[in-house]
């Protein structure tokens, strides 16, 4: 058996500096692969990938709030909207409040900063509250922001929206294509992931986890809980605003209709379905909740389903058999080429059922962080192997 010190050291290598430095080459590899594969997909697919990467970014942001600090936030869309509107107000030629445009690369960091600022402002009255009160108040904030955007016509143009935004330019080259925006959002996701991973493994992250575990005790250990909750809220908010600021010139139509509670719920759901606190989880969650409903509408899906005609015929034969055996009169399946269309139409029903099913089968999510899993483990006194990644 190695000496305690040696074991500790090994564990350090694996867990303390666990993420960024150790995994950095790997992460870069993944990033470059992601970028390299772009030419192989058309705009329809790229749009889906953009959406997934956008939700990954938002999920990483919300993960700080919900997964690390344990604060249930149902109003995350407010920050997403804030980032989008900051860019749109200053970069849209139809913006009633601002004439002229501001360079996008000035607005992007500004959005992050303003996001953090509003995170603090919204968080201050809310964060002394606990649990479910926090949930409903954040939900209320999200709605307030949306209704304000809808009704403050002299700034936001209400439901008419802001559009024709100045596209971001890199050394004179205008970012315009779907794949170029995709690269932008992937970089943003990467930055968000890097920052939050570093934070999680620092003194700050420890304070967040302590607050999540037991707020009173954390305070008794000298942690200013309100301050750290605010920091979590602000970090999440700034990442949400970052996502919004990149999405704005991409969809090029910023209107309150896009910032409903449904967005908050989607982001929360993907964080939890993926497994709180884990980045793989966020990616998996985004692929399932955002990617799948999109893919269901693709012609490739329809084509694939069309090839399953034999399956339908087989099942229909079985249904015939059943109908012959019993007084039941089961309907036959529609032609296979309609399946894709049908699935696309009923995708929200599928989405709802999926949420329930995943939670029942894996209540900790698909890729729970190591720690979350342990929380759930049945072991009591058995010593778990040291270290490991979270």
């Amino acid at each position, binding site marked *: 058996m190695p000496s305690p010190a040696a074991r500790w050291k090994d564990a350090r290598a694996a867990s303390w500096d666990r993420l960024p430095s150790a995994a950095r080459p790997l992460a870069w590899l993944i990033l470059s692969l992601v970028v390299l594969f772009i030419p192989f997909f058309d705009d329809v697919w790229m749009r889906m990938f953009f959406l997934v990467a956008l939700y990954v970014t938002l999920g990483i942001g919300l993960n700080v709030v919900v997964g690390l600090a344990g604060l249930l936030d149902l109003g995350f869309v407010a920050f997403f909207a804030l980032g989008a509107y900051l860019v749109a107000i200053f970069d849209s030629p139809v913006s009633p409040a601002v004439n002229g445009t501001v360079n996008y690369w000035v607005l992007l960091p500004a959005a992050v900063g303003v996001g953090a600022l509003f995170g603090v402002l919204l968080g201050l009255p809310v964060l002394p509250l606990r649990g*479910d009160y926090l949930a409903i108040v954040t939900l209320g904030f999200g*709605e307030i922001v949306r209704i304000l955007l809808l*009704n403050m016509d002299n700034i936001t143009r209400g439901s008419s929206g802001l559009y024709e935004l100045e596209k971001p330019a890199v050394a004179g080259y205008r970012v315009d294509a779907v794949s170029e925006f995709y690269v932008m959002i992937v970089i943003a996701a990467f930055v968000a992931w890097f920052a939050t991973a570093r934070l999680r493994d620092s003194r700050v992250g420890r304070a967040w986890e302590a607050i999540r575990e037991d707020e009173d005790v954390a305070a008794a250990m000298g942690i200013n809980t309100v301050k750290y909750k605010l920091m979590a809220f602000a970090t999440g908010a700034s990442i949400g605003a970052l996502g919004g600021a990149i999405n704005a010139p991409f969809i090029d139509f910023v209107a309150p209709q896009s910032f409903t509670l449904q967005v908050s719920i989607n982001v929360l759901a993907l964080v939890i*379905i993926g497994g709180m606190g884990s980045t793989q989880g966020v990616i998996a969650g985004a692929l399932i909740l955002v990617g799948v409903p999109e893919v269901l509408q693709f012609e490739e899906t329809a084509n694939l389903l069309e090839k399953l005609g034999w399956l339908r015929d087989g099942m229909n034969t079985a249904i015939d058999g059943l109908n012959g055996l019993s007084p039941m009169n089961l309907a036959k399946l529609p032609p296979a080429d309609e399946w894709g269309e049908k699935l696309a139409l009923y995708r929200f029903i599928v989405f709802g059922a999926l949420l329930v099913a995943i939670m029942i089968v894996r209540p900790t999510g698909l890729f729970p962080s190591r720690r979350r899993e342990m929380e759930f483990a049945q072991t009591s006194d058995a010593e778990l192997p040291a270290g490991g990644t979270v």
Partner: protein
Amino acid sequence: MTPLFLASTEVWLDQLVNGLTTGSIYALIALGYTMVYGVLQLINFAHGEVFMLGSFAGYGTLVALGGNDLSGGMVAVALILAFLAAGGASLGTAVAVERVAYRPLRNAPRLAPLISAIGVSVLLSHLVDDGFLNGGAKFYPQIFPDGDIELGPLQVTYLQLFLMGSSLAMMGVLYWIVQQTKTGRAIRAVAESRDNAALMGVNVNRTIVVTFALGAVLAGFAGVLYGLFFSSIRGSMGFLPGVKAFTAAVLGGIGSIPGAVVGGYFLGLTETVGRELLNEIPGVNLPNQWKDVIAFALLVLVLIFRPTGIFGQKESKRA
């Protein structure tokens, strides 16, 4: 003489009645939220859909019995049957949802049942909207006798009276059940501590189901009242009243039954009388679409001053 207020007496009284009617519905739904929260500490996000399905069951019953052609005594019979059908449908839905989506998650991390609840909510509302209604809305038969009672400047239609009166009666019955019956005692015991209740021989699972059922029946009744009064129903109709009712429950102090009722009326009045009050401030003229902002802003303010709601107990010491 300059009037004290910009708005006339009629407007104030009218808004008062409007607030009380909306508030009645909020209160009925809020009771379900607060009771389930009391026993399970779960925000039953699907409660709005339980309300929605109750409303549709009532609609189906009324239409099956003749819809707009109903008249005379048949109206009363049809209404009673509609309430029964609605209560039954909501009860069935809630019990099924509890069994399928919540019970397997009783000991899961806190957020898992919440997401499951959101899933049920999305599933049910879209099942009705996309699966059956093709995105359209249904409209309740207008069978309630017309006419109104005038009390000085105050005008209340029969329907409004019926709505407010029957809600109060239902809340009264619920209060009696919770306070006076054995089932009620069991509910309160489980709310106090699930473990202790189990030790004292309370069937916890059964009590939880009963709690869901009680809340659901009220939501179903609220669904019929809603349909009769506001007429238009659709799959997504449960969402906003659901959120509002939850807000009401939190305002009143979640877990508290009187709190849910007071919270419901308070919220209803805030949206109507409250907006009128704000409009008395010179230079302010908030049209109708601001009412949700006012409602949620009020929630934030109340929670700042009373972090556990109006009737909420001081956070007890966690031991």
